[in-house]
């Protein structure tokens, strides 16, 4: 299929349909409105259903019902709307339902702004709502990757019976790049949805109940241990990352999504200055690619974490590096996008950031 020039939000929507999503429930919020607009236009043409919910609270609960009925379902929003969905996401994780969520992040806290931000990292990677659970989180750095990770998200959701979040930002959502959509079919080894409530006529009379209520503490603990066994499996099998020019790097930048593009430019600038700088780009934020750090620590003199936040992923980098190397941080907040030049200056403050 030919490459098409698309806006990020539309590419994500097209990828979801390509992955077999036929049901979308959502509520308008900037900067992700092109996704529901695309879905409302395209889904009815292929027998799908678009429902504009009365709120993000309703949307995520429609997702719960539709996922429980066995459909591949998607909802998308931006930071304040994702906050409103957190209760429902907790219920979906607790009831072990598959769904795909997209957060096109904007600046916060509160009403904040509509410019690009990465300040929802904690919320995305630590569960976000109440209780012991995690959400698998994928962070695309370009639109082709946004397409591929959206398609992957539906398979991961079905495999782990858990919410999977595509964590993008206003830059990814609004920029235009060429993308290629290739025919996509669900992974052949996904487990059957024999838990879906489709009526007992489809289950030989066996009642199926979708629920997250366990009043006995021992039952609930057993349930949570089951969830964490799934997360342990995901930590073994689903870690994804990219290393850029790390083989000889004295300073390793760590950045994801939009900031990884800026960091990549900063790597080139540093190289032209004679500095040996590389980039470690997490693609899965949960599970975090802790293992990747073992590859670069023997050579690296220091790390520089770059984020569009006051420093959130930097905590995961500290856990991975475990005090073995100094870690610097450079972040901009509120929707301000850092420039490559600013990142280069930050590199130059760190051990290994000076020309020998």
């Amino acid at each position, binding site marked *: 299929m030919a490459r098409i020039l698309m806006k990020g939000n539309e590419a994500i929507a097209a990828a979801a349909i390509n992955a077999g999503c036929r*049901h979308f429930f959502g509520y308008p919020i900037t900067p992700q409105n092109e996704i529901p607009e695309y879905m409302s236009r395209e889904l009815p043409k292929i027998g799908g259903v678009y429902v504009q919910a009365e709120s993000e609270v*309703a949307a995520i*609960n429609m997702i719960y*019902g539709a996922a429980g009925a066995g459909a591949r379902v998607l909802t998308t929003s931006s930071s304040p709307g994702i906050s409103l969905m957190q209760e429902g996401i907790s219920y979906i994780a607790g009831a072990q339902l598959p769904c795909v969520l997209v957060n096109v992040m904007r600046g916060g806290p509160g009403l904040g702004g509509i410019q690009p931000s990465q300040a929802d990292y904690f919320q995305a990677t630590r569960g976000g709502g109440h209780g012991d659970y995690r959400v698998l989180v994928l962070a695309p750095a370009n639109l082709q990757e946004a397409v591929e990770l959206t398609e992957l998200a539906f398979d991961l959701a079905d495999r782990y019976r858990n919410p999977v979040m595509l964590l993008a930002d206003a830059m990814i959502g609004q920029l235009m790049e060429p993308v290629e959509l290739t025919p996509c079919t669900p992974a052949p080894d996904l487990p059957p949805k024999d838990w879906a*409530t489709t009526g*007992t006529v489809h289950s030989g009379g066996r009642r199926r109940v979708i629920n997250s209520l366990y009043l006995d503490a021992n039952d609930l603990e057993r349930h949570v241990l089951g969830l964490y066994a799934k997360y342990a499996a995901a930590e073994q099998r689903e870690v994804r990352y990219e290393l850029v020019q790390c083989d000889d790097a004295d300073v390793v930048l760590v950045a994801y999504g939009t900031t990884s593009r800026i960091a990549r430019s900063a790597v080139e600038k540093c190289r032209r200055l004679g500095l040996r700088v590389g980039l470690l780009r997490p693609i899965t934020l949960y599970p975090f690619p802790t293992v990747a750090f073992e590859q670069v620590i023997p050579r690296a003199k220091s790390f520089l974490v770059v984020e569009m936040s006051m420093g959130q992923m930097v905590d995961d980098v500290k856990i991975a590096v475990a005090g073995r190397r100094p870690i610097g941080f450079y972040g901009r907040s509120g929707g301000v996008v850092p420039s490559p030049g600013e990142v280069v200056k930050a590199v130059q403050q760190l051990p290994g950031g000076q020309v020998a």
Partner: protein
Amino acid sequence: MKVVYEKSRGLTDTPMHYCPGCTHGIIHKLIAETLVELDVLGRTVMVCPVGCAVFAYDYFNCDSQEAAHGRAPAVATGIKRVLPDNVVFAYQGDGDLASIGMAEIVHAAMRGENITVIFVNNAIYGMTGGQMAPTTLLGQPTTTSPAGRARVGQGAPLRVCEMLATIDATAYITRVSVHTIPRLNGAKRAIKKAFQMQLDRKGFALVEVLSTCPTNWGLTPVDALRWVEQNMIPVYPLGVFKDVDGGS
């Protein structure tokens, strides 16, 4: 031996946890009988509330999903949009539907979702121990209105049927009671009609059932039934508020 009566096969054998004199069990029975009589039990998906009926998924012999507090109409919407040929119904109490879930019920009605909602109104929060609900009567003491609900500061009882009947996309809105045998029989007819509406794809149907809470009202079961007649029905008049079939 001749069988003259048996428990509906729409219900499981799980013993119900409801308090003595509570009418949730009667309402469950009417719904279960309806699903069997309409021959739809095997393709029914129930959405359970948070409230006294939170364990309803243990009692009904059909598939079910447990919703977050107040969100049953949104969950039912999600199910019905995926499975339009299944029968989907939400069972909600007055705290669930008329307080925390008011947006979800109003907008499910506004969209004319082809679902059935059974709304059980006992004028109090039962499961949490008898707190004031939006449906609590003026002067009615509860654990959070110990001097009785006062119009100033705590407002007046919310009439859900009257409000929803103003919404154009609704198909059938009615209020019934189960405090006497004739009323119980009328409630059964209303519940059956509300499910038939869904089968006929006529859209959103809601049956409000006035119910008792002897435990939190501080009354005997018999006095609680009398309290429905004397105190609730004057505030919540029984009747049909909307019927696209034109009946009343």
